[in-house]
């Protein structure tokens, strides 16, 4: 069902946990639908120096969280904001169709954390203009297939 990369990130998820003094935190999804992702960012000089996640969800939700955090760790916020669900899927070597929404959730979680950081610091991050913190991927699932 899952690729080796997915299983690797599921088996040994990178960056699990909380960051106590995170300056950007985003949470998306809901328990009703079976997946919630929460991402913690530590940003210094526009660079993501640390990132952690907590995820309630299926194997691909955990793997997507893990992969997304790896993809943005050490990157500048302008690069991180460009992270797409497609990039997550690619890095994971693919996801089953019915699991594509997990990668979207990961993209959303990163954006939510960046949005939180932007709000807290008053910074503007290009690419977040359309960000809707209440957007529910589960209602739009087919769009990403």
């Amino acid at each position, binding site marked *: 069902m899952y690729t080796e990369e997915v299983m690797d990130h*599921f088996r040994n998820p990178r960056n699990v946990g909380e960051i106590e003094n995170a300056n950007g935190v985003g949470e998306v999804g809901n328990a009703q639908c*079976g997946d919630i992702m929460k991402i913690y960012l530590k940003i210094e000089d526009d660079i993501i120096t640390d990132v952690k996640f907590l995820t309630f969800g*299926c194997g691909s939700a955990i793997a997507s969280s893990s992969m997304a955090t790896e993809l943005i760790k050490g990157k500048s916020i302008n690069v991180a904001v460009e992270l797409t669900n497609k990039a997550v899927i690619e890095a994971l070597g693919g996801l089953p169709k019915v699991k594509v929404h997990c990668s979207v959730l990961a993209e959303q979680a990163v954006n939510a954390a960046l949005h939180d950081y932007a709000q807290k610091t008053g910074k503007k991050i290009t690419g977040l203009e359309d960000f809707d913190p209440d957007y529910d991927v589960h209602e739009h699932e087919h769009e990403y297939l």
Partner: protein
Amino acid sequence: MERKVYLDNAATTMVRPEVVETMNKYYTELYGNPSSIYEFGQKAKKALGSARETVAGIINADTDEIYFTGSGSEADNWAIKGVAEKYCSKGKHIITSKIEHHAILHSCEYLEKNGFEVTYLEVDEYGMISLDDLKAAIKEETILITIMFANNEIGTIEPVREIGAIAKENNIFFHTDAVQAFGHIPIDVEEMNIDLLSASAHKINGPKGVGMLYIKKGIRLENLIHGGAQERKMRAGTENVPGIMGFAKAVEIAGKTMDESIEKMTVLRDRFMKLIPERIDNAKLNGHPVKRLPGNVNFSFEFIEGESLLLYLDMDGISGSSGSACTSGALDPSHVLMGIGLAHEIAHGSLRLSLSDFNTEEEVDYTVEKLVNVVDRLRQMSPLYTGRRK
């Protein structure tokens, strides 16, 4: 992954070596067509007769009340649509429950699209239907009550005998999907007033692709599969003699070992049901504490999701199952867990472990040990977890 602990016997089972041996004989030696008149075909026909007798015996039916099918689902579809088509002039109302298998529910929905009315009875927190609700649902137009013998997810055993009595009293046919109960616990169609009963071989260490429908004498169903004159013209298709012989062998063994097997599985099941809540906080038993299949264990673990749970257990060689939506590609968790009133997030974190009598106490202990770790690991990862983080 060295170890293998198979705890998904409600999904499907290993075929017993004795059953494989029986089938192989009919694949390569006695492969004749039972409808043929040469001796070679007649031998197969005779074998079929004895298989029918064995299968009839375990539910106290008559030999010619047993019709072999290609699956439990086919038997369910046939029973419901077959009665509906033949007796629609009597009425177009069917009563079932909210927690039936999809083979029942989707057949009912199909009939709804074709002008039938279906009442889906609610169940209580244990998954039990209410006999009062049932009585209240009966109308002049009710032609069929179909309530499962035991639930496949949570193991709850429905009050079949009482349902049978109510059906009889009201002159309504009673079908029961006994796919999970057949061969596992005692069934007596006579005593329980069951008119139609579905079963499937692969749930009792028999082959996949073989099922049966018991049809009480006197009841006429429209065929689901039209064609040749097999199964007394009721179910067409060259008889799957090897599969049916394998089914009968599995039934024979199930019958002989039932008491022993119930005892053994109940001990293992109860060990799970004792150890899990002892070792894991916020673990909720699903299904009835006592009126449940001897092989069924079902728990919900708060704060975590079922698929991850299954995958981590799989890494320890343990095969289980979950009612989580994520395992099925659906949006909602299983209709059964919803039916007993679980909140979505709780339902997502459910785990079914289903036993066979090949399982051991040692496997139970191993599984509990691993489960404790896995649940903890996932909770540590979960944003919902309210316990102590390490």
